[in-house]
C-alpha cells in the first residue's frame, strides 16, 4: 500500500514538471500543461502526507 502511495506521489511530481518541458519543446499547449499540473498537485498532496513525514522521521533517526 505504501509503495503504491509513493508511486502515485512521484507520478504527481512528474506531472508537475514534465508537461512544462513538453510546452517548452512545443509538443503540448499551455492549457493542457496547466491542467496536468493541477492533476499532479492533487496526486502529490493526496498521497505524499501519508508517507513523506514518516520517511523524514526515519531518516532523522537513522542520521542519529
Amino acid at each position, binding site marked *: 500500500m505504501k509503495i503504491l502511495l509513493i508511486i502515485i506521489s512521484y507520478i*504527481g*511530481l512528474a506531472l*508537475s*514538471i514534465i*508537461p*512544462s*518541458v513538453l*510546452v*517548452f519543446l*512545443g509538443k503540448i499547449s*499551455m492549457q493542457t*500543461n*496547466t*491542467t496536468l*499540473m*493541477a492533476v*499532479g*498537485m492533487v496526486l*502529490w*498532496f493526496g498521497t*505524499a*502526507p501519508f508517507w*513523506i*513525514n514518516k520517511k*523524514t522521521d526515519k*531518516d*532523522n533517526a*537513522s*542520521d*542519529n
Partner: protein
Amino acid sequence: MSPQTQNTGPAVNEYEREPVPASAQKGWRSFLGMYAGEHTAGTEFVIGPLFVAHGVGAFDFFSGLILGNILAVLSWGLMTAPIATSKRMTLYYQLERICGYKMVSIYNVVNALMFCFLAGSMIAVSATAVGIPFNLTMPTLTTWLPTSLGWVLVVLVIGFLTTLVAIKGYNQVARFANVAAPWMILIFLSAALAILPELGVTRFSEFWAVANKVIWTGIPLEGVSKFSFWHVLFFAWFCNMAMHIGMSDLTILRYAKSWKYGFLSFSGMFIGHFIAWISSGILYAAFLQSSNFSTEFAPGPIAYGAAGLAGAVCVVVAGWSTANPTIYRAGLALQGVFPKMKTWKVTAWVGAVTSIAACFPALVMKLLDFVALYGLVLMPMGAVIFADFYLSPRFGITQEMAYNRNISFSNATFFTWLITLAICLGLNLGFGIDIFFLGLPGWFIAVFTFLILSNTLYPKGKEALV
C-alpha cells in the same frame, strides 16, 4: 530567503539552557533538506520579480547571485557553524550568557517585531492569490496603502486563519511544509520553463540573448531605482544576515554533528535563492510583456498566468507556510519577555499585529529593503557573539561576561548595538549609502565597539565600572 521555518519548531525547545548532547545530534541529510526547504518560500515570489523591476542586467544578476550566495554559504560554514558546534547552545542562551537576560528581552522584542512584519508580507503575498476569484484590485509597485475594503477583508481572514493554526497546530503545519517543499521547488521551475516560449526562448541556446533583451534588461521600471551587480551580490549575501552573521542559526546548527554542515546551506542558496529567484523573475518578465508593462505587482495572478491553479496554490502555500511558523516564532520570542502570559494569548496578539501590518502592500513592494533592514538590525548581536568567542581572550576580556560576572544587563553590548545602528543610519542618511551595503562596515563597527566598550566598562579582574 526565509525566517527559521520548517522542522525547527518544538525541537528547539529542547536543551534550551544546556549544550545539545551527542545523542541528540543529527546527520547531514537533515540539514541538507532543511536548508533547501526553508529557503524556497513565499518571499521568493517577490524577490525575483523585484530584481527585474529594479532593472538589473542579466550578467550582473547571475554573477551577483552566484558570488553573493557563495559568500552566504561561507558565512554559515565559517562563522555560524563553528560556534554552534563548539558551544551547542541556542542563540538566546548564548546571548544571555554574554549580555545578560534583561538585554536578551530587548533583543526578543525587536526580533518578534521583525518576524511580525515578515509574516505580514507573506500574508499579503497569499492574498494576491486568494483574491483572484474575487477579482480583487491588486496592488501596484507604488502601492503602500490597502487597495480596497475587499483586500483588507481577504488579508484579515488569511491572517486570522494563519494565527489560529499557529495557536492550535504548529506540528501539523511543519509537517505540511515538509510535504509542500519538493512540490513548490518543481512548480517554480516548471512555471518558468513553460513561460519561456512566450518570451521567445524555444531552445536553451536562445536563453541568454532573451534574458538580456527581455528579462534582466538593465532598465528599471518607471519610478523604480536602478540596481547594479553590487546590489544583487550584497542582497544575496545579506538577505539571511540575521541567520548567519547574526547567528540566529546557532539554534539549528547546534544539532549538527560537524561544523562542516554549515556549508550544506548551499542547498537553500542554490535552489531557493538562485533557481527560484531566476524562475520568479522570468514569470514577472512574461507578465510585463503580456500586460504591456503594467505596474501591477501581484505574485498570485503572475503565477496563475504561468502555471494555472497549481501556480496560484503554490503562492498561497508558499506564503502561508512561511507566515505560519514565523508568527509562531514571534510568539515564542515574546513569551520569553512575558513568561506569565499564556502562549496562545501571546500568539494571538502577534497574529493581530501581523494581520494589520499585512493590510499594507508596502511590506511587499519594499520587501528587499525590509529584508536588508531585518538583517542589519539583528547583525550587531551576531557580531558580539563572534567577538566574544574568537576575540575576547586575545583582548583580555572575560568570555561570556554576563554569566561569569553575574551581570543582568551588559551596557557594553547595549551600546554596541545602539552605536552600530546609529553609525549605519548616519552612513545611510548622511552619505547616501544604500541599506544593502551597510551590513559589512556595520559588522566591523560592532566588533570594534564591543571590544573597546567591554575593555573599558568591564576591565578584567576589576568590578564593572557601570
